[in-house]
């Protein structure tokens, strides 16, 4: 498939007949869900994956509300520790020249100090004494990290909305453009067919034009292919239906042209190459393989497209 080759695989071949052809000739079939999974990741690599998914990463994956809650909770917990730590041991928080007492106003001071530390403001009106200084440094670091996560969440949320919007609009644009171009291709094919019917053979100029039309058609086919396989947005079924119907009509008329031209004009290498790649691309539009499951009508037209593609090849 084109997808694999696009990734860099050089030795890919397509079994065009697929399951249908396979079953038709009574070839052996295996029935099991047991797929061969990817070879197990070596344990050292696995460990490093786990290590990389450290608490910071887990934190970054939390939703915004939870992160903010965690941040506030952390500040309160640290505040309580500051408040109760070192009671009667000669260390704790110190405001002015006196140690903060473990009473209600002391609690308020401890919470205040915790916020000032977590936000890395550090006024210095309340200071930690003794081992609490270590705790204050730890809180400062943790506060910065968590707050950083909160900020990045806010930014990325907006960004995600924007990219989603961009995806949607470009998708609709592409769909519209493909539809218009297919109409042009179809009318071009039509006029070529008419000329063919009138004159019996095609003058070289018209043949050139046909070649370039086939080229345009190929491009549109590629776009449809990408829309079906690589798109992040699920195509609107109605739009897709008309698109595929147009594609079927175009392929049909291309098939008619092909059979009449080969008899009247002999071979044209460029036309042959164009037809070959059109047929290859159309052949990959497969109702069973596309990532979304579509309505039966769409599958039918995809099957029809594949059938036509085989005839053109």
């Amino acid at each position, binding site marked *: *498939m084109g*997808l*694999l080759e696009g*990734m*860099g*695989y*050089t*030795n*890919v*071949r*397509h*079994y*065009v*007949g*697929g*399951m*249908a*052809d*396979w*079953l038709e*000739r009574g*070839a*052996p*079939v*295996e*029935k*099991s*869900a047991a*797929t*061969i999974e*990817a070879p197990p990741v070596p344990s050292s690599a696995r460990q490093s994956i786990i290590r990389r998914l450290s608490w910071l990463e887990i934190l970054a994956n939390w939703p915004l509300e939870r992160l903010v809650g965690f941040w506030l909770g952390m500040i309160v917990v640290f505040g309580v520790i500051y408040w109760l730590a070192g009671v009667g041991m000669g260390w704790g928080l110190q405001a002015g020249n006196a140690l903060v007492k473990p009473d209600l106003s002391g609690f308020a001071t401890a919470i205040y100090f915790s916020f000032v530390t977590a936000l890395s403001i550090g006024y210095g009106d309340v200071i930690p004494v003794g081992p609490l200084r270590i705790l204050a440094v730890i809180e400062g670091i943790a506060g910065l990290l968590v707050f950083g996560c909160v900020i990045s969440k806010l930014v990325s949320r907006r960004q995600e909305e924007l990219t989603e919007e961009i995806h949607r609009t470009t998708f609709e644009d592409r769909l519209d453009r493909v539809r218009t171009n297919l109409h042009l291709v179809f009318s071009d094919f039509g006029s070529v067919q008419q000329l063919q019917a009138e004159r019996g053979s095609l003058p070289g100029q018209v043949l050139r034009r046909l070649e370039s039309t086939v080229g345009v058609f190929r491009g549109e086919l590629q776009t449809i292919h990408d829309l079906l*396989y*690589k798109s992040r947005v699920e195509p609107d079924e109605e739009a897709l239906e008309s698109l595929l119907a147009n594609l079927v009509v175009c392929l049909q008329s291309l098939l008619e042209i092909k059979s009449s031209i080969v008899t009247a004009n002999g071979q044209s290498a460029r036309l042959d190459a164009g037809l070959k790649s059109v047929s*290859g691309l159309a052949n990959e539009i*497969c*109702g*069973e*393989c*596309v*990532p979304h499951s579509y309505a039966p009508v769409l599958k039918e037209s995809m*099957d029809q497209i*594949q*059938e036509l593609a*085989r005839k053109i090849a």
Partner: protein
Amino acid sequence: MKIELRETVDHGGTISREEILARLGDRALVILNVMPKETFADGHIPGSINLPVVDVEAKARQLIANFNQEIAVYCAGAT
């Protein structure tokens, strides 16, 4: 033998049922089924591995590390 080789080159990108049948036990050829998991479970070419089209970009490298690996891709085919 030589004729067979030329034939595969001439086809340019396709593989025949006969060749797959002849090479069913051949470990040099990876037979890749790109249909959804459920369809794969209903029946597939013996020895083929399943990689639904949706997952190709994300998982192909894990499944097939070698870019020069000989691969035969198939799906439902004509009905």
